[in-house]
């Protein structure tokens, strides 16, 4: 009963960005059509922000990185070859930006110049899950426990788990995003799931 109520399926990923509409947008952007680029931003920004948020764990930084991602994409659009989908390419930029931010954050924490004296992970927990009011408390607990478990993963595993589990991306696409082999992606994903199981093993929610 409880299991059924919690089995909310995450938003499925859009198909790879090779449809005609996307190709038309790409052609228009290459022709200098700014409105086409705006369309790309409006079409993809929300999913990108959610992905970045799952990696960096901070709303403001997620929005900043997403903004930088689109600015860099605009600047380097001539580099986009179309061998992968546009969204995969955007993910790649966002992933690199996110990992750079986490490295800087880690360095700051080592140097103890962080503004909040935190360990650097700084995960804030959003409570935006839509659920039945009668299940609100349970959902809130679940949200916090899952967020904490995901936050405990190393950054790359966190990103891979998010792309695979929440964005339903293929291992091949994830490999293109992070610039590693598919085998490495699979290994990281399996590591991530094992760690999540360990993290959540004490939770009462693990019992069906």
């Amino acid at each position: 009963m409880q299991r059924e109520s919690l089995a909310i399926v995450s938003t499925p990923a859009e198909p790879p960005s090779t449809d005609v509409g996307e190709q038309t947008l790409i052609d228009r952007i290459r022709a200098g059509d700014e409105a086409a680029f705006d369309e790309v931003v409006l079409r993809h920004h929300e999913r990108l922000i959610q992905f970045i948020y799952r990696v960096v764990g901070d709303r403001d930084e997620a929005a900043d990185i997403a903004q930088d991602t689109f600015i860099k994409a605009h600047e380097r659009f001539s580099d986009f070859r179309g061998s992968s989908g546009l969204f995969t390419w955007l993910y790649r930029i966002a992933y690199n930006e996110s990992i750079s931010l986490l490295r800087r954050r880690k360095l700051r924490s080592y140097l103890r110049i962080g503004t909040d004296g935190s360990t650097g992970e700084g995960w804030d927990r959003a409570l935006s899950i839509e659920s039945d009011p009668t299940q609100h408390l349970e959902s809130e607990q679940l949200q916090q426990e899952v967020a904490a478990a995901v936050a405990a993963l190393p950054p790359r595993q966190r990103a891979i788990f998010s792309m695979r589990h929440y964005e339903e991306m293929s291992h091949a696409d994830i490999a293109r995003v992070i610039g590693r082999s598919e085998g490495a992606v699979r290994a990281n994903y399996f590591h991530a799931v094992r760690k999540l199981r360990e993290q959540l093993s004490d939770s009462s929610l693990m019992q069906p």
Partner: protein
Amino acid sequence: MANHLNDDDLISLAETRDQPPAHVKACPQCAARLRAFERTLELSAAAPPTMDWNRLQAGAFLHRVRRGIHQQRQPRVTPWWQPALAGATLTVAVLMMFRVMAPIAPAPPIDPSPAAVAQVVDGWTDPQAAAISAGGSDDPLTSEPDMTDAELLSLIDAYLIDTASEDELLLTLGDFNDEEMVAALDP
């Protein structure tokens, strides 16, 4: 049971929800592990870390992106004093470089005429030169009252050669004919 599935296989099964192999159905241990992975993925999917976002924020976000692109296109404005400071620093550096590396200025050619020599001798300040200039008698070389101009010039040449720098000597030698050159260089 030697056919236990490893974690990776069980995670793949949990993810795909494929029909588990017969071993998993028969093995309580593997079945429990599979169930734990399935539950982990269910919980994670049920409550993904999510950031609140709405349509109003979408409009503001697009505006932020446009502004960022616009700012990137603008040439960067540098404070007025930065180019001035850079120019001044460069000028000082170049001047110091010239100061250090400038060659020694060549000495003016020596005019051996008596008038010129007399003018030079008048400018000397050391006692011996003053004595020569004044025709003093303390110096045995100048005590001869009947010293001819040629002798005096020879004496002055010797003095100038003794006190001249290497560059001055080379320049002076350039004015000599072969015989004078041999005479000057022959010890």
